[in-house]
């Protein structure tokens, strides 16, 4: 895919939640984001600034009040629930903080679920082997979710998000439930995937260390974009310091 193509284009996105007595709480207020193919982008900000809502709206889990979201030339804000589900199945990979794996299935079945739902699992086994090798989970594919560690669960969730070769991976705090070592491993795996498979990634995170692995960091404040930091040619450690400094300036967490 051409790296200059915008995989995700968000224009003037608004979202608010109704409160009592006819009032509403604005969560996203005119967000504009463009993400190119193969780019790793982090969205950061204080709790309640709208990070998870942004991911939910992009993935169609929640609905925007107004604005436009175009994922690879397809406008998704007008889709109904079923169209959105099918679009999500074919074009989006989702990773959650609490993994959202089905305890009733083993790792292999969990990873293959998107293909099974799409009734398109002819190359499933092959893809699974490839992803398992990249994510180092070959040895646990027959294990049940309750029998594996948090880091392994998140790697299984990443494999599941990649199994349908999505145009974009949306990750909500992918390292939020993990210890420091597992978090580092997960980010390294995500980087490997980004490099080897040219996967596009948008993740929301509190973790500056995790954000430093990305090409770009978007800082949200009170539902608006406060700033966008580009990694450019900086090394990861310098970019990490850069993010720290900037967060201090804008009073982020």
């Amino acid at each position, binding site marked *: 895919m051409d790296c200059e193509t915008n995989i995700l284009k968000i224009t003037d996105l608004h979202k608010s939640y109704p409160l009592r007595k006819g009032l509403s709480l604005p969560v996203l207020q005119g967000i504009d984001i463009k993400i190119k193919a193969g780019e790793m982008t982090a969205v950061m900000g204080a709790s309640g600034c709208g990070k998870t809502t942004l991911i939910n709206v992009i*993935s169609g889990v*929640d609905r925007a009040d107004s604005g436009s979201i175009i994922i690879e030339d397809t406008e998704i804000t007008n889709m109904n629930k079923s169209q959105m*589900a099918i679009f999500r*199945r074919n074009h989006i990979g989702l990773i959650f903080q609490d993994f959202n794996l089905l305890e*009733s*299935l083993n790792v292999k079945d969990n990873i293959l*679920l998107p293909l099974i*739902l*799409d009734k398109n*699992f002819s190359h499933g086994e092959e893809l699974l082997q490839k992803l398992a090798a990249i994510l180092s989970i070959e040895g646990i594919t027959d294990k049940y979710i309750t029998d594996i560690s948090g880091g392994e669960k998140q790697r299984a969730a990443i494999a599941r998000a990649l199994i349908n070769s999505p145009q974009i991976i949306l990750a909500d705090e992918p390292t939020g439930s993990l210890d420091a070592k597992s978090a580092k491993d997960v980010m390294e795996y995500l980087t490997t995937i980004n490099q080897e498979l040219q996967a596009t990634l948008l993740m929301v995170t509190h973790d500056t260390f995790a954000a430093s692995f990305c090409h770009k960091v978007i800082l949200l404040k009170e539902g608006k974009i406060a700033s966008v930091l580009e990694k450019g040619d900086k090394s990861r450690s310098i970019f990490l310091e850069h993010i720290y400094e900037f967060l201090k300036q804008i009073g982020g967490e």
Partner: protein
Amino acid sequence: MAFLKILFKMIRYNHKSYKLYMYCNTFTMTLLFAFLSICSNDSFMHSYYIDSKISYNILAPAALICLFTILFLPYAYKAFLKGRKQEYSILMTLGMTEREVIANMFLECLTVSSIGCIAGLICGSGLAALFFLFLRYTIGLTTIQWEFHISAYLAALILYTGVIIIILFINILEFIKANLAELMSAKQKEERKKRGTMPRLIIGCGTLFLSFFIMLSVYSSGKTNLSLLSMGTAIIGIALTVSNFDSVMPKNIKRNWKISISFLMQHQKSWKTVTFLSASLFGLLIFFSGLSITLYSNSLSNAMTYSPYDLFYVQDHISNRISSRKLEHILNNNGVSVSSRKKVEMLRNGAFNIISAKELHKKLGTNYQPVEGSYIQLFQEDLNDGYEHSLTPLGTLKIPLKNNQELPLQFQEQKIEILFNPCKSLADITIIVNDKDFQNIKKLAQGFIPQNAIMINLDNWKISGTAIRDLQNSMAELNNFSEEDQYVSSLSSKIQAYTAEKQASEVLTFWIFFVDLMFFAAADIMICFKIKSELKEETRMIFSLYRIGITAKEQWNILLKKNFCYFLPSLLLGIIFGIFYNYNVNNVYHYGHLGWVCAGIVSVIVLILQILITISVTKHECRKDFIFD
């Protein structure tokens, strides 16, 4: 095919919740069908075979079972769906469409419900057979016949299917209404939302007071049909009070209760639902079991009151003709002898028994004085028998005469006194007239049959059962009775009335205690499953406490107090409800004290059982806990 394989794996993993939901359906259908099949049994419900006092006693428990079906099935499905919702939301984030999820919900619910339904019909048939055996051989209702009526199957299927379709429809609508983000956080949100508010709590308490007011003021003044309204209002009051109690939760709770209550408050919405449902079940349990004990003693004394003579029958020119000598001979052969015998002349058509006041004075020593051209209406009722009575006077009567004229009789007054036993040969209404009017009616009236009421007392009525049966058979033989004649001309005796009341009371007590046992089990099963569903989270919390230094004894205390909060508030509410209504319903007939004492005894027994169950559940919970093993 692969998706079906995945579904099968998910079902296998979640088999416990599927089984539990199926058991709930089977259990409900078993009870429903068993009761409906007895209700539709012609030989049980027909007064020709079984005294209607006995057969009608099944109607209230059957109505309770129908109510139970309407309440319990939605609860069971909701509990089942709670676990499934999380899986559905994950599948939807992966691209499963809403239509596919709804189809799945539909398929799951219908499959499990159908299996539960079929299993329930089979188990229900078995339970109905046990009921039949109990009624026939333990209670002694030998005339009841074994039969399964198609209407029982239809009624059970219609109610069951109707409830299932409605709950499925409501839950699917709720599902469609919610967006995916809400579904993903449904569990936490459900517990957090709908916190109690003070205004709603005040409305709840007000509704409870209103229900008490209806019962104390209006009901006591004789409008007994308002008891259901009062109970309905009380149930709404309990629901509002329970769901808003947290608005007045004191902030400075004793420290040793604080942790236990914090466990509870994490799941406060489901705690409120379970507490309301189990309080309603406990309330009905205590009310009905107390009532059935009160009625048991009451109805035996009623049998004696309504049968003042040991043997009573009506003799006319064709029926029940038997000489005194023959009658005494039959009785003597069965070890019973006549101690007194009276005969009262009367006239009867299809509607009235007409008796002369002079004849009554002479034979029974009464002192009724109807003036010429008037009548006294006799109500043979005991106003304190625990039942409602309709004492509506008839107004002016016109007795048709043979010369196509009419003899008018004015209403003079009404008297309430039991002079005769209830007897099928007597008309429903008895009037007492002046002797002159009586003689005129006897001579000139059209359609009146002269007959004699024969009233006999025996030396020992308690052993007269066989003698009365022999006498009935001999009379049937002597008078060439057909089966119908025998039914209409049957003798009325104290022993039969006593036996019928005893059987009716035993049957009622049996039904009520059976239903109560089911209610008790259902209430405690609901609470136990709620505790079980929270076990994982609770273990995590206990482990956190363990890390800051909690001991095994302290863990026991915390869990015991938490479980008391689950098991006891609903029972205490039920006890207040049960005792209050038992006192008031019975107080109208002067059995109030007996009523509350009976309900109180049941309450103490249930309370002791509940405390034992709480301790046992806590022991089980502590055994399950990995920390102190």
